């Protein structure tokens, strides 16, 4: 079973366990382009809560927030993360509702992100950083196939709060095999998690970049710790600063453009909160700024060689 198929079973389970949950999107009654509602669509008892909508890029997030304001818990499935930028006006209003109205709109937006399907263009733009800048919105990026279902469940069940949440599925992860899918997270949700212990350096990363970072650390031969940031907004600033202070040597690696990527905010955070404990320059290794054609979409991810060199550079600085 791959990640998308696994997520489809989790979505069906989530609909079964709470009848206020509904799914919105252009083709949700037919399974969606990614197949995320395929399992739910085969269950007659759930079909009534798969709410296919006409293409509504401008208002769909607001429509979902209106449903949420009346007590529903909508999941909105987008075929592409950059489509959420088409919806930015409505996403902003949905994210502001808790502040403005006194009641949060617990909507979860699910979208694939980044390179992996040979699309180039919008899929290489690092959309996550645009969304991370919306006040009141939580932005989470999946990084682990076995945990994907549990992270989705935590987002939908509101483990970290009822704010509208964007859950991004890296395309490089979408078809990865789920060997043993966790039912529930055995750790806190939407907070940095250490995925490799180490004392020589700290590499911060998330999403599609995590496997590259693992490979680069092994190749470098240095005992670097790896931190999956997981939640790009709001950032758990103190937890991140602690991970930086622990080694004093930092590499930040992420998919998408370097310019105004979330890595820029992390580097600034470490300058603000950890600069006196840093022992090397903070290095950011990212994708190209683009735009990138389909044939060169791999350049939206850091290059393994550059990443390995960066880790060696800070570890031996």
């Amino acid at each position: 079973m791959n990640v998308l198929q696994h997520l489809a079973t989790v979505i069906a389970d989530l609909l079964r366990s709470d009848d206020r949950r509904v799914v919105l999107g252009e083709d949700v009654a037919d399974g969606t382009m990614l197949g995320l509602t395929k399992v739910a669509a085969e269950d007659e008892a759930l079909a009534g809560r798969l709410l296919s909508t006409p293409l509504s890029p401008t208002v769909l997030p607001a429509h979902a927030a209106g449903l949420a304001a009346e007590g529903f818990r909508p999941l909105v499935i987008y075929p592409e993360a950059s489509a959420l930028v088409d919806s930015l006006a409505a996403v902003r209003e949905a994210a502001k509702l808790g502040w403005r109205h006194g009641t949060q709109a617990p909507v979860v937006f699910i979208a694939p992100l980044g390179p992996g399907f040979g699309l180039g263009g919008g899929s290489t733009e690092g959309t996550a950083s645009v969304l991370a800048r919306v006040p009141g919105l939580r932005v989470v990026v999946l990084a682990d196939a076995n945990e994907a279902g549990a992270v989705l469940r935590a987002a939908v069940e509101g483990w970290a709060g009822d704010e509208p949440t964007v859950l991004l599925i890296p395309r490089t992860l979408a078809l990865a095999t789920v060997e043993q899918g966790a039912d529930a997270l055995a750790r806190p949700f939407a907070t940095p998690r250490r995925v490799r212990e180490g004392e020589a350096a700290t590499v911060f990363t998330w999403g599609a970049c995590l496997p590259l970072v693992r490979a680069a650390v092994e190749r470098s031969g240095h005992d670097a710790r790896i931190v999956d940031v997981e939640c790009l907004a709001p950032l758990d600033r103190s937890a991140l600063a602690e991970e930086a202070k622990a080694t004093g040597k930092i590499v930040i690696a992420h998919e998408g453009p370097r310019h105004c990527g979330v890595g820029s905010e992390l580097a600034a955070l470490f300058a603000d909160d950890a600069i006196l404990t840093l022992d090397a320059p903070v290095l950011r290794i990212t994708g190209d700024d683009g735009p990138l054609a389909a044939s060169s979409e791999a350049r939206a991810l850091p290059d393994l060689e550059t990443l390995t060199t960066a880790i060696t550079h800070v570890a031996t600085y």
Partner: protein
Amino acid sequence: MEPTPWDPEGVTVVLDPNGQLVGTHPSNLDAKQLYKLLVAARCLDLRLGRAGLPMWASAAGEEAALVSTALVSRESDWIYPGFRDVAVALARGLEIEAIVAGLFAGDEVGPGRIASATHRIAPPTDALGIHLGLASGRAHAQKLDGSGAATFALFGEGLTTTGAFHESTMLASSLGLPLVMVCRSQLWPDGAPAEAGTVGDSVADRAKAAGLWVRRVDGADALGTHAAIEAAADRARQGRGPSLVEVVVTQMHRDPPAHRDPVERLRRHLDNTGAWTQTLQDVIEAEVRGSLDRALRVVNEETSA
């Protein structure tokens, strides 16, 4: 009375320019109560216009649409107003003191805007027209719940060129939502400028093409406006889908003929039936102005303190 360039075409009329009944309106409507609210709304608008609120826009001349929407709505319904639609709050039962305090405090919704969770008046949005999407979602929830409640969305014709308007009407129409859209269209006696977004046709025609039940009424005719919005709301509550009532309004600051004023036209009607007296007028105005003065004094004291 001969039609003037100020009189809209293609509208259903209940009250003619002289205040004579020429059509039918629901017999249970208390025309005197409607009149009191129109006068109160006008007093509020004129007074607030002098109060120096940032980005304030007058709604004088548009009161029939605002007050009728609030009167037709039930407690369980939701109203999604636009920026200048303060009269909705008044007719929905908020005290003038609370309205004025809200308009000047403006903590979350911004100065000059009104919202109330207890009165089910939704806050306006920063992004243009996105309140229509929030309203369609609310109506979708009402339909799924089978509660028989309806959602009202208010806006002006300027918004009908936006993607937000078209998408919201398509969502409401394709999903059969209990959404009542009340659109105020400005009247352009010398022809509409490009920014009006219409070229002589009507918003109602366009919404009809999108599958909505529509009525086009004259905003100077408060009884006709009320009747159309009530019919639209009845349809929504019966599960018969979304609607758009286009109310053609004349803004008072453009100095139109007196019969274009909804307050004056309803006054003529009440006068014809013997229900209006100068004393009645004085009492209504004194009451509103008294509350307004008190409320503004409190606000001023708080600001200078």
